[in-house]
C-alpha cells in the first residue's frame, strides 16, 4: 500500500516498479474499450516476460502482450476485439502452437473471481457452467497447481448446496479468488491521491483493482482532488486501493475511451493484418512499439489527423459518423 498523498508518477517508472518478470497481472477494459494500452506498450518495451495474465473479455491489450511474447500463462473468458478480431489473432496463434498455457472461464466467473479477491474471501459461488467443459477441462494440470502456491489447487469446485433446498439451487460452482500482484486500469479521470472516476460502462475494472496487491491507474485527465470530491457518487475507487497514478492522454488508444475518443478502426484493422503474418508482426513490434520512446511517440506517428477523426462527440461520447469499415 502506498499511503502518499501524491502518487503521480511517470509510466516508465510505474511499470518498472510494479510489473516484474513472472508476476501475476490483470488489465482492465473490455474488448476494444478502455484497455490500458499505453501501459501494455510500455510493458512490451521493457521486455517484461513470463507474465501470468488474467482478464475477462479483454481483446487488444491481451493480444498485444501475447504477440510480443510477454505472457506465458493466461486465465481468460474471451479473447476478441469485437468486429475487428472476433478471435484475437496472436492469441489464437499462440494457443494453437502451444506457446502459452491458457485456462478458460466464463465472463461471470472471472468477474466473481476478481470480486472474491476484492472481498477478501477465497471463493464465490455461482450456478454458471454446471455440466460443461469449463468445469471438466483444466488448462493447468493438478501437478502444476500443486507445485505452484500462486495458483489454487483446483480450477473450480462443484458442491452441493449446504442449505439444502434453500434458493432452489441444488449445486453450486465455487470459483477461486484472484489476487494479482498488480492490476492496471485506464480511467477517464483520477487525482494524484489515487481516487478514480470512470465514465460509461466500468466493466470489472473496480473488482480487478480492489483484488490486486498493487494498482496502476493511467488516466486521460489528472484532476485536482476537489474536482472529484464535488461529485463523489461518480467515483469508484478510493485512494487507498491505488499505488500509482499516471497521466497518459490517449492512454487507451487504439481502443476507445468513452467521452474522450473512439477506437481507431484504421489502427485495429491494420493491426489485424500485421498480426495474421508472423513476419509482418515483427515489423509491427519494431515500428510501433520497440522503436518508439513512449506512448506520445506512437500518437505522433499516428498523427493528429487520425486522432482528430476519433475524437468523441460531446453529446454521445463517441465519434459520430466515423468510418468503421
Amino acid at each position, binding site marked *: 500500500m502506498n499511503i502518499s498523498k501524491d502518487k503521480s508518477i511517470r509510466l516508465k517508472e510505474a511499470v518498472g516498479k510494479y510489473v516484474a518478470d513472472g508476476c501475476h497481472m490483470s488489465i482492465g477494459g*473490455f474488448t476494444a474499450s478502455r484497455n490500458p494500452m499505453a501501459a501494455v506498450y510500455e510493458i512490451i518495451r521493457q521486455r517484461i516476460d513470463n507474465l501470468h495474465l488474467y482478464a475477462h473479455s479483454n481483446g487488444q491489450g491481451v493480444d498485444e502482450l501475447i504477440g510480443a511474447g510477454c505472457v506465458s500463462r493466461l486465465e*481468460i473468458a474471451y479473447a476478441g476485439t*469485437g468486429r475487428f478480431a472476433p478471435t484475437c489473432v496472436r492469441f*489464437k496463434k499462440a494457443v494453437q502452437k502451444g506457446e502459452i498455457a491458457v485456462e478458460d472461464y466464463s465472463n461471470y466467473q472471472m468477474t466473481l473471481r476478481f470480486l472474491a479477491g476484492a472481498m477478501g474471501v477465497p471463493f464465490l459461488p455461482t450456478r*454458471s*457452467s454446471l455440466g460443461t467443459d469449463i468445469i471438466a477441462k483444466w488448462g493447468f494440470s493438478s501437478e502444476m497447481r500443486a507445485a505452484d502456491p500462486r495458483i489454487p489447487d483446483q480450477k473450480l469446485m462443484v458442491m452441493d448446496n449446504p442449505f439444502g433446498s434453500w434458493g432452489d439451487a441444488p449445486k453450486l460452482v465455487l470459483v477461486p479468488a484472484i489476487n494479482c500482484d498488480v492490476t492496471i486500469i485506464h480511467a477517464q479521470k483520477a487525482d494524484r491521491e489515487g481516487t478514480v472516476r470512470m465514465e460509461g460502462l466500468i466493466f470489472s475494472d473496480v473488482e480487478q483493482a480492489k483484488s490486486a496487491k498493487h494498482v496502476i491507474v493511467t488516466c486521460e485527465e489528472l484532476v485536482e482532488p476537489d474536482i472529484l470530491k464535488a461529485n463523489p457518487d461518480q467515483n469508484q475507487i478510493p485512494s487507498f486501493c491505488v499505488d500509482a497514478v499516471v497521466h497518459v492522454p490517449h492512454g487507451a488508444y487504439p481502443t476507445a475511451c*468513452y467521452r474522450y475518443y473512439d477506437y481507431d478502426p484504421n489502427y485495429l484493422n491494420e493491426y489485424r493484418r500485421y498480426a495474421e503474418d508472423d513476419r509482418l508482426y515483427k515489423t509491427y513490434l519494431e515500428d510501433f512499439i520497440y522503436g518508439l520512446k513512449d506512448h506520445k511517440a506512437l500518437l505522433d506517428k499516428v498523427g493528429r489527423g487520425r486522432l482528430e477523426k476519433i475524437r468523441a462527440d460531446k453529446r*454521445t461520447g463517441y465519434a459520430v459518423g466515423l468510418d468503421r469499415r
Partner: protein
Amino acid sequence: MPDYTLKELMTIAAAREIRDGDIVFCGTGISMVAAMAAKNISAPNSVIFFETGAIDSLLEEVPLAVSDSRVMFWTSVNGNLADAFAAMQNRVTGPHVVGIMGAAQIDKYGNLNSTAIGDYFKPKVRFSGSGGACDVASFVGRTITFMQHEKRKFVQKLDYITSPGWLDGPDGRKKAGLPAGGPASVITNMATMGFDETTKEMYLTGFFPGITPQKILDNMGFEIDVSRAKEVEPPTEYELQILREKCDPQRLILG
C-alpha cells in the same frame, strides 16, 4: 410479396421468437438487430441489455462490440458485468431473460462450443472462448442460437462444451444442478429449429422458402425430425420496413 435478403429473413425469424416483456440479452451483430426489430414490431415492452451492463441503450449507431461506446450512450442504467450476470442468475428476473447467441458448433441438445476445435490442449482451431455465453446459457429462461447451417457445425459430439443446452437430454440440466431454462430455438441460413418438449432433441420447425427439409438434413452431422416443419413465413412488408428504417438504416449488420 416483398423482396428480402437472407439476413433479413433470419433476423425477422429471431425477432418473432421474442415475447413482449422479455428481457433480451444480446451481443452485437445480427442478434442485436433482431432484438431491436422485436422491440419495434411485436414486443414494445421488451428491454435490451448487454453483458457489459448497459440496459436499454438508444443505439443511434450500430456498436461493433458490447463494450463499444455506442452501447453506453443514452441508456437506462450503465452498470457493470457483475450486475448484468446477476440479473440473469437472479431467480425473479432470470427466467424472463431470452438470450441470443452464436457458436462454432452445436449438438442435438443445443449445447454449444465456442472455445476450440480439436483437442482442447492442442486445438486445431482456437476461438475466443465463452465470454458471457456459458453464463447466459446456464442462467436464463430461453436461448435462441444463430448458426451457419453446415455439417461441421451441427455435430454429433462437441469438441468442447462451452455453453450448456439441454446437456444429455430431458433430465440433463436438472442432474447437473442448472436452473430450469434452456435452448428454445436455433436459426440458421436455411431453417428454424426447436427442441422437443419431451426428448429435448432438436427438430425442424420451419424451412426457409426455396429450401427443402432434405437439403437441411444434408447439411447437418446428425438426424433431426422434420415431420413438424412448415415453410417459414417470409417477412411482411411492415416487418421489413421497421427493420430497414429503424434497426439498421445504414445496413452495417444486414449488409
